[in-house]
């Protein structure tokens, strides 16, 4: 079992107004309230799917580690950067 450090136990939750469209290898998040479009890479989409208000960032990081065998610190940096980007774009909020 991975002995994960506590990163941030608040849980990110997708803004319900925002929707994801996946087509032709492109992943686009559209925010109608701001009229904003965000193009996402594969990892960002996976993290987006996990922003259900119930999953903590540390759980996301552990799962990516389990799948990729990458070091915790590397994955932590990527996941937290993605969540920061979502936060700045206003497409998520935080529970807890």
């Amino acid at each position: 079992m991975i002995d994960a450090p506590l990163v941030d136990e608040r849980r990110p939750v997708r803004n319900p107004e925002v929707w994801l469209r996946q087509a032709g290898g492109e992943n686009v998040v559209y925010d109608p309230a701001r009229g904003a479009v965000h193009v996402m890479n594969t990892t960002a989409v996976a993290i987006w799917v996990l922003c259900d208000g119930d999953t903590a960032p540390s759980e996301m990081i552990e799962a990516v580690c389990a799948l990729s065998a990458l070091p915790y610190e590397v994955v932590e940096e990527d996941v937290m950067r993605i969540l920061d980007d979502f936060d700045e774009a206003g497409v998520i909020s935080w529970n807890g």
Partner: protein
Amino acid sequence: MTDQDAPPIRVLLADGQSLFRDAMKVVLETRADFEVVAEAADGMHAVEEAVRTDADLALVDADLPNGDGVRTTRLIAERLPECRILFLSQHEDDVALISSLEAGATGFVTKESPIGDLIEMARRVHRGETTIPPQMLGTLLASLIRSKRQHDEALRRLARLTKREREVLALLARGADNEGIAQPLVISPETARTHVQNVLGKLGVHSRLEAAAFVIQNGLVDELAGAGV
């Protein structure tokens, strides 16, 4: 040895449709790094052929007759652990993705993929990489998180048991009755029964069968192996 000098990847094609097998064989054999060493139209034959030819890579279809693709994958993984398995599904099917990876596949691809993608995924799976369609990554991560939560919860419940109760649970998981529990622990059957009731209560299960299932489904057999019975 360079890649060009490396022996070809020895492939088993397991698919119920001969047209698909023939097409894949033609395509793979135009590549110098693949050699199709066996074909199978059903699950049991696929397992036999994988073992007989000692295949490096098995392409296993989800809808194989006579032992579906997941069961076939599990059997090949058990009997030929060195063989990498790329699972072929008609569609992006979340259940098939999780089931196939749990069974031992390390790659998942849909038959809607371009042939070039399928061949590249076959190479990557043979190299030992885990490959799935990128758009299914979120589903897979969510499943991993669910499994870990379930396992953590099981460990929390297990931690409520005393050392003696863990010994009792280990015996329960092997199907022992009160007598079968009492004898190795050198206690009376009545005491064994009391321990069983305590174990059921602490685990929050309602029967001995449920307690045994709790151990097996949560992968706690090894955890209890140190219980000393």
